[in-house]
C-alpha cells in the first residue's frame, strides 16, 4: 500500500511538472508570435515538440517484460488509468468532428454525447470489474476461458472469433484515426497528406513499439493533459466574450435563448428567404433536367457551348469566358453521369433551401411521422453507441491495468469524469460558435470578410471546408450563403474567437494528441490479439516470454503500416467509419461478454452462435441499407439508418446465445467455477 502511495505521489509530481512545462512552452510561443515569428513555424514547433515528447516518454518506458508490455504491470493508479482511458477514448471524431456535428444538427447530434457517456455505465456495472478479477491480458482471453470446450478445454474457436471481431472493429477505427492525423498534420504544417500520415505513424510506433501498454499509458496521460487544455482554452474565451462567464458549460444556458431569438429573426428576414428561394429554383431546374433525361443532357450541352461561343464573339470579360469554359469542361460526359451528378446537386440545393431549424428543437421534420422516425433513429443510435462503447477491446483492455478490482471500478468513474470535462464542453462550444457566426459573420459586407474565412476556404481547394458565396448578389453575407464543413469548426474556433495563432496551433496539437492516443491503444489491441491470442495461445503455447513480446512488436509494426496504407487511400468520412466499428463491436462481443458474467448456463455453443449471428445480422444490415456499401434506403428496416445496425445485431446475438445454450449440454465445471470466481470479491 505504501509503495503504491509513493508511486502515486511520484506520478503526480511528474505530471504537474509536465503541465507546468507545457504552460511555459505556450507562453514562450505566444511571446515569439508577438515578436513576429511566422505562422508556419508555430505549426512546425507544435507538431514536432509534441511528437518528440511522446517519443521520449515511449523511450523512457521501454520494456520487454510480458506483464509490463501487455498490462503496464497492473499498477496504474485509478486516477491515472482514468486519464489514460479518457485519452484512449477521445478520438479524432470526438475532438474534431463532434462539435461541428452539433453545430449542424442541433439536438439530433446529441445522440453521440448521450451514447458515448452512457456506455461507461455498462462498462462499470457489467464488464470491467469482472475482467479485472479474471486478471489475464486480453478480451479474447476472457471469452476463451469462460467458453472453453472440448477435450483440451482451450476454447480455441471462441478465441479465434473474438480475435476476428477485435481486429475488424479496431482496424476500421484505427484507419479513421490515422486519416485524421494526416489531415491535421497536412493542414497545419503544409506537408503532404501522406507525409503527415507517416510522421504521425512514426510517433505512434516509437511509443507503443518500445514499451507496449506501459509506454502508451504514460503517453496517454500526457496526451490527455494536452487535449483538455487545447479544448478548454478557446471555449472559455468564447464563453467570456458572449456571456461574461469563464465556465462554458454553465454560461451557454444564457446564450442559448439569445441564439434562439437570433434564429427566429433570421428566419423572418426577407433577404434570407430570397437566398433560399434561389436554391429552391436551382433544385427545380435540376429536377426538370433529371426528368427530361437523356434529351435534357444534349440540350444542356449545346446551350453551354452556345453560351461560350456567344461570349467569345461578344468579346466578353476574360473572367466570364473562363467560367463558361470551366462549366463546359465540368459538364457531365454522358446522360448516366448527368443523372448521378444532378441528383446530388438536387439534394444539396434542396437541403440549402430548407428553413432554419432551431438549435434546441428535437427531431425537426415536416410532419409527426417523419419526426417519429428521427426519434427512433436517435434512440437506436444511442443504444448502439452505448453497447459499442462497452464492447470496444481497446477500452476494456484497460480494466486489466489497475492494482485491484476496486481500483478498476474507481478508474471507470475517473474515466467518465475526464471524458465529461470535454464532452460537457462540446455542446457549449457548438452553441457559442453558432451564436458568434449567426450574430457576427451574418450581415457583414463581403468586402470585409474576416481573414479566417479566406484562410480556411483555401486550405483544401477541391472540397472547401468553408464557402461563402454571394448568391443573391446584395454584397451582404446571409446565413443561407454559408456552408461549413463540420470538421473545420473546432480547428477554426480560435480564429473565430479572435485568439492569437498560438492557440490555433495548440488546438491542432490537441487534435493530433486525440487521434494519436486512440490509435496507440487500438494498434496495441490488434497486435496483442494477434501475438498473444493467436500466436501464443493457439499456434505455439511453448513460446518463451521474450519471443512473445518480440512477435508482438513485429506484428504491431506490420499492422501499423497496413493501417497507414489504408488511410492514405482516403476512405469515406471519419464519423461513418467509426459508427460502423461501434455497431459491429456491440453485436459481436457485447452479448458474449455480459452473458458470460451474468448467466452461468451460457456455454461454448451459445457463444459461438451468438457471435456469428450478431456479426452476421449487423453486417447484412449494413450491406443492405448503406449506400456507401452498395445497398440503399429501400433496404432499411423500420427506417433505421445503417449506422445503427447494432440495434438488430445485438438482439440477434443475445437470442442466438440464449437459445443455443439452452438446447446444448451445460458448460463444463471449470467454466462454472470461473464464473463463481470472478463474481467473488477479492
Amino acid at each position: 500500500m505504501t509503495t503504491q502511495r509513493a508511486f502515486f505521489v511520484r506520478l503526480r509530481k511528474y505530471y504537474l511538472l509536465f503541465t507546468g512545462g507545457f504552460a511555459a512552452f505556450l507562453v514562450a510561443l505566444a511571446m515569439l508570435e508577438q515578436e513576429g515569428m511566422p505562422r508556419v513555424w508555430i505549426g512546425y514547433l507544435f507538431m514536432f515538440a509534441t511528437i518528440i515528447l511522446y517519443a521520449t516518454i515511449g523511450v523512457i518506458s521501454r520494456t520487454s517484460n510480458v506483464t509490463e508490455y501487455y498490462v503496464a504491470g497492473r499498477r496504474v493508479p485509478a486516477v491515472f488509468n482514468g486519464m489514460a482511458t479518457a485519452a484512449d477514448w477521445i478520438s479524432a471524431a470526438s475532438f474534431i468532428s463532434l462539435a461541428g456535428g452539433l453545430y449542424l444538427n442541433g439536438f439530433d447530434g446529441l445522440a453521440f454525447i448521450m451514447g458515448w457517456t452512457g456506455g461507461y455505465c455498462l462498462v462499470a456495472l457489467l464488464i470491467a470489474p469482472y475482467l479485472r478479477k479474471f486478471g489475464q491480458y486480453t478480451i479474447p482471453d476472457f471469452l476463451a476461458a469462460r467458453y472453453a470446450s472440448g477435450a483440451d478445454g482451450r476454447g480455441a474457436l471462441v478465441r479465434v472469433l473474438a480475435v476476428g471481431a477485435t481486429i475488424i472493429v479496431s482496424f476500421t477505427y484505427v484507419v479513421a484515426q490515422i486519416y485524421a492525423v494526416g489531415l491535421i498534420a497536412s493542414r497545419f504544417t503544409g506537408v503532404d497528406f501522406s507525409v503527415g500520415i507517416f510522421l504521425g505513424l512514426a510517433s505512434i510506433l516509437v511509443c507503443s513499439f518500445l514499451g507496449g501498454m506501459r509506454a502508451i499509458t504514460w503517453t496517454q496521460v500526457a496526451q490527455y493533459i494536452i487535449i483538455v487544455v487545447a479544448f478548454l482554452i478557446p471555449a472559455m474565451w468564447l464563453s467570456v466574450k458572449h456571456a461574461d462567464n469563464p465556465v462554458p458549460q454553465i454560461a451557454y444556458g444564457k446564450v442559448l435563448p439569445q441564439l434562439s431569438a437570433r434564429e427566429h429573426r433570421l428566419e423572418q428576414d426577407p433577404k434570407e428567404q430570397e437566398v433560399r428561394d434561389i436554391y429552391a429554383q436551382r433544385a427545380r431546374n435540376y429536377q426538370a433536367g433529371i426528368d427530361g433525361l437523356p434529351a435534357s443532357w444534349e440540350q444542356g450541352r449545346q446551350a453551354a457551348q452556345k453560351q461560350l461561343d456567344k461570349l467569345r464573339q461578344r468579346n466578353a470579360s476574360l473572367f466570364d469566358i473562363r467560367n463558361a469554359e470551366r462549366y463546359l469542361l465540368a459538364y457531365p460526359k454522358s446522360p448516366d453521369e448527368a443523372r448521378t451528378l444532378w441528383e446530388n446537386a438536387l439534394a444539396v440545393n434542396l437541403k440549402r433551401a430548407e428553413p432554419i431549424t432551431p438549435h434546441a428543437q428535437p427531431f425537426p421534420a415536416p410532419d409527426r411521422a417523419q419526426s417519429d422516425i428521427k426519434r427512433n433513429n436517435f434512440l437506436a443510435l444511442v443504444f448502439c453507441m452505448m453497447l459499442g462503447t462497452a464492447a470496444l477491446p481497446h477500452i476494456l483492455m484497460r480494466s486489466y491495468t489497475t492494482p485491484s478490482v476496486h481500483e478498476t471500478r474507481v478508474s471507470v468513474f475517473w474515466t467518465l469524469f475526464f471524458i465529461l470535462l470535454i464532452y460537457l464542453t462540446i455542446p457549449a462550444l457548438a452553441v457559442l460558435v453558432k451564436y458568434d457566426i449567426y450574430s457576427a459573420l451574418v450581415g457583414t459586407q463581403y468586402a470585409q470578410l474576416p481573414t479566417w474565412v479566406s484562410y480556411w476556404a483555401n486550405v483544401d481547394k477541391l472540397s472547401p471546408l468553408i464557402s461563402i458565396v454571394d448568391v443573391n448578389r446584395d454584397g451582404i453575407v446571409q446565413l443561407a450563403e454559408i456552408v461549413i464543413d463540420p470538421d473545420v469548426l473546432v480547428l477554426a474556433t480560435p480564429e473565430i474567437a479572435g485568439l492569437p495563432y498560438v492557440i490555433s496551433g495548440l488546438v491542432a496539437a490537441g487534435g493530433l494528441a486525440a487521434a494519436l492516443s486512440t490509435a496507440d491503444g487500438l494498434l496495441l489491441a490488434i497486435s496483442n490479439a494477434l501475438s498473444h491470442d493467436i500466436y501464443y495461445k493457439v499456434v505455439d503455447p511453448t513460446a518463451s516470454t521474450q519471443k512473445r513480446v518480440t512477435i508482438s512488436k513485429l506484428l504491431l509494426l506490420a499492422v501499423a503500416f497496413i493501417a497507414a496504407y489504408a488511410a492514405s487511400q482516403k476512405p469515406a468520412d471519419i464519423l461513418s467509419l467509426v459508427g460502423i466499428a461501434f455497431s459491429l463491436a456491440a453485436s459481436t462481443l457485447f452479448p458474449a461478454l455480459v452473458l458470460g458474467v451474468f448467466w452461468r448456463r451460457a456455454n461454448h455453443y451459445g457463444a459461438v452462435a451468438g457471435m456469428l449471428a450478431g456479426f452476421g445480422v449487423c453486417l447484412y444490415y449494413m450491406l443492405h441499407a448503406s449506400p456507401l456499401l452498395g445497398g440503399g434506403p429501400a433496404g432499411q428496416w423500420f427506417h433505421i439508418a445503417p449506422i445503427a445496425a447494432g440495434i438488430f445485431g445485438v438482439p440477434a446475438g443475445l437470442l442466438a446465445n440464449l437459445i443455443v445454450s439452452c438446447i446444448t449440454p451445460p458448460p463444463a465445471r471449470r467454466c462454472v467455477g470461473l464464473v463463481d470466481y470472478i463474481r467473488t470479491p477479492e
Partner: protein
Amino acid sequence: MDKSLERSALLARRAAHWRATRRLTAILLLVWLLTGFLTVFYARELLHLNLFGWPLPFYMAAQGASLIYLAIIGLYAWRMRRLDQAFRDAIQEQQA
C-alpha cells in the same frame, strides 16, 4: 464435518454477496435506462419546460444524462466497496 460446514457457510456468504451485487446492478441499470429513454422519447413533449435557461430535454441530452451516468458509476463503486468489505469481514470473523 466441521470442514464441510465451514465450506457451506462460505458458499452461502458468496451467494448473498452476489445477490446483493445483482440487486444493486439491476437498480442502477434501471436508472440508466430510464434516464436515456425518457429524455429522448418525451423530448418533444417536454420542450416547453425550462431549466436554468435551457429547454429541459436539451439540457438532459447535453449534460444532465451524462452527469447522472457519472453519479451511477460513482454510487456503484462506493456501494460495491462496502459490500466487498462486509464480505471480507464476515469471512475473517468466521475464520477467527
